[in-house]
């Protein structure tokens, strides 16, 4: 009985540990796909989007601007010209083209607390919404441009643009709420905390890590300034007017959760900018494919020829075992060593510099064993009777190889090539010191370039946007999975 029990326990353990590998992979893939498709960021702001006040204007942005929400203070800075590029707003490296309906100038100058003269700045293009709708060519241009922002009258119905939500609720508090107490200070509020504050379910500021003061909701800014512990949700515009005169009022910072689509078609289809910090990855995908293609072109003939030699010509002896040891060792060399070798031989000694060809040659050597081993197996499994028949008909050995052996081993060889493609696609360490890092399209064998895996590495090392890293990683994973499933299809056919 005991034996049976321990048997069952052991077998269950084995089974569950093997299921663990599935779980690990599932976790990895699903997380990477999720992060590739969506980005969730917490941004610290002065306004909350808990309540949005009704405004007599509407804001639109171009589809590729990644802007579908702006806070009052950012909008103000954009109109002022203090923010002139979307770089910091939505990671789009384009100067903003701002269009404002002239009928809104008066309202906007009071709403944003700006002098009317500030609207006459160069960066603001003032145009009526009506004109904009009629001016088809301008509208087209704005639609195509990645950083256009249009402020137009309500219900102006501009099509083909993002509608931008403006959040402008500030939680104004008496100065003592934000003061330092016992080494503690009120932190940034989360959305739920804003909600419970406004719904009166928070009684004391200490519940929000603040001072030991009672929470008092009041109805005017004067009261906020006078009463200790007082707060009031207020439109940012009014708050902006008041703080210039009232030093007793401050605002609470709020965490704003931005969840946006991460990997967009636009990211795939536009060229990289500013050393890969902004823009898309079209050029990098292109370079990756070129690199892999050239690598395969170079490595395949050599490894297939090597495999033919090993199967058809090699006799047992020192030379053959030397060749086999060479292949085993080459397969075991870590990619960083290949990188160093490439740096010494191709980049420096042969004077090829940090270039596509240096990278290609390095990776070609690296993937030799992969193709060679699979091809060797495939060639070995060609039935001897086929070969004998060909020889019997008077064909020479080499004719037999080209006309009989290779065609019947072609599926196995293809599998080897595809496995090698997978390996070349994901290679990083061997390329960092050989291929260069330029993000533009490769123009020749000697031009420096950057491939996907290396791009992900460089983004992280150089402290770039982690969202971009995940988006690029998703593209890389898709390519790898594609290669993987092609291999499987071929292998399945081979079995049949």
């Amino acid at each position: 009985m005991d034996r049976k029990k321990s048997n069952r326990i052991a077998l269950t353990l084995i089974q569950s540990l093997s299921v663990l590998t599935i779980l690990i992979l599932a976790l990895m893939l699903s997380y990477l796909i999720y992060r590739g498709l969506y980005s969730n960021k917490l941004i610290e702001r002065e306004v909350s989007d808990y309540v949005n006040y009704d405004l007599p204007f509407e804001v639109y942005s171009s589809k590729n601007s990644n802007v579908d929400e702006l806070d009052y203070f950012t909008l103000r800075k954009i109109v002022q010209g203090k923010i002139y590029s979307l770089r910091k707003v939505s990671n789009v490296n384009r100067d903003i083209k701002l269009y404002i309906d002239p009928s809104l100038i008066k309202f906007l100058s009071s709403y944003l607390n700006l002098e009317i003269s500030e609207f006459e700045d160069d960066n603001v293009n003032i145009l009526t919404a009506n004109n904009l709708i009629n001016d088809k060519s301008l509208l087209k241009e704005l639609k195509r441009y990645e950083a256009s922002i249009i402020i137009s009258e309500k219900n102006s119905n501009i099509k083909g643009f993002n509608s931008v939500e403006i959040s402008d609720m500030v939680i104004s508090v008496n100065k003592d709420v934000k003061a330092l107490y016992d080494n503690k200070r009120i932190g940034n509020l989360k959305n739920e905390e804003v909600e419970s504050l406004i719904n009166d379910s928070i009684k004391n500021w200490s519940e929000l890590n603040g001072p030991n003061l009672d929470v008092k909701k009041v109805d005017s800014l004067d009261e906020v300034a006078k009463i200790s512990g007082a707060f009031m949700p207020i439109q940012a515009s009014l708050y902006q007017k008041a703080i210039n005169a009232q030093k007793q009022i401050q605002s609470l910072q709020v965490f704003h959760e931005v969840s946006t689509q991460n990997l967009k078609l636009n990211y795939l289809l536009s060229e990289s900018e500013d050393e890969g910090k902004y823009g898309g990855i079209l050029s990098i995908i292109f370079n990756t494919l070129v690199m892999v293609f050239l690598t395969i072109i170079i490595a395949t003939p050599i490894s297939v020829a090597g495999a033919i030699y090993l199967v058809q010509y090699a006799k047992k002896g020192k030379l053959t075992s030397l060749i086999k040891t060479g292949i085993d060792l080459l397969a075991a060399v870590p990619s960083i060593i290949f990188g160093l070798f490439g740096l010494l031989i191709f980049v420096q000694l042969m004077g090829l510099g940090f270039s596509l060809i240096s990278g290609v040659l390095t990776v070609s050597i690296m993937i030799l064993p992969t193709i060679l081993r699979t091809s060797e197996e495939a060639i070995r499994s060609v039935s001897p009777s086929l070969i004998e028949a060909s020889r019997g008909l008077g064909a020479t050995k080499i004719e037999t190889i080209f006309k009989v052996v290779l065609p019947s081993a072609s599926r196995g060889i293809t599998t080897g090539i595809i496995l090698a493609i997978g390996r070349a696609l994901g290679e990083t360490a061997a390329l960092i010191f050989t291929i260069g890092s330029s993000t533009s399209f490769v123009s020749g064998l000697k031009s420096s370039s950057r491939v996907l895996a290396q791009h992900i590495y460089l983004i992280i090392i150089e402290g770039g946007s982690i969202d971009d890293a995940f988006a690029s990683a998703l593209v890389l994973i898709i390519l790898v999975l594609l290669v993987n499933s092609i291999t499987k299809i071929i292998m399945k056919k081979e079995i049949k």
Partner: protein
Amino acid sequence: MKKNTNNKRRRVIEQGSKVVLLLCALVSITAVIAITLYIVNQGVPFFSEVSFTEFMFSLDWSPSADIPKYGIASFILASFEVVLIAIILAIPVGLSTAIFLSEFAKGKLSKIVRNTIELLAGIPSIIYGLFGIAIVVPAVRNTFGGNGYSLLSASIILAIMILPTIINISEVSIRTVPDALRHASIAMGATKWQTIYKVVVPAAVKGIVTSIILALGRAIGETTAVLLVGGNAAVFAKYPTDMGRTLTMNIITDMSYAEGTHLSALFATAMLLFIFILLLNFIVVYISNKSKVGAGE
């Protein structure tokens, strides 16, 4: 007469192509020799400036200091530590999966497991690194404190990366254990688990050890994935949860700006790494030769 020249031509082609094929077959071994020679050529001059003992046993790596120090002991230790923990984490899961696939390989589950392993083997190391940053590092931070970028995080990522190596090679060797052994064991009244534990695994132990050594080789040479999660601090890591730097991390980090003695120190580091890998491979060759002799007897 015409036939004769034709035959001659064919023989020349035959001989010529044989030579070409041989040359192609020799590319791999030539590359290995060239890699060895160049790395040694760049690394050896280093020891005329810094003593071998200082290089191997000093914990002080400060190549940019006024009096530069080139001790890589802490990196050697970190490499071993990372690889050892990775292996310890990977063996139970890897071996169980291998046993599962070879002994119970029926039904949908084993098919899914097999596909999973194929996928895991195909995922590029940079992606493992990215996954490490996003999931493993925060998990280690929350569990053990510190900032999460640590040798332990690197070990966890490596453990996942070497799973396919362990599973594939162990599975093959478990599968080649003759069924007669299993039947005999079961017939003697042993349970399935007793058969696996006392008969099948001992019979396949050489293949299992080979798989572990090959996995060690892969782990010790891994660069990008460990670099992203290991913290890369050029100091001795007292605990696995401290930030640390392995041999490969040292090479890749300093390579971009190193000059003179510093550069040759990096090649010396690469030389050492290469020696470790060669050693591991010779052990594998030794084991497989021995098992062939055993089978022949």
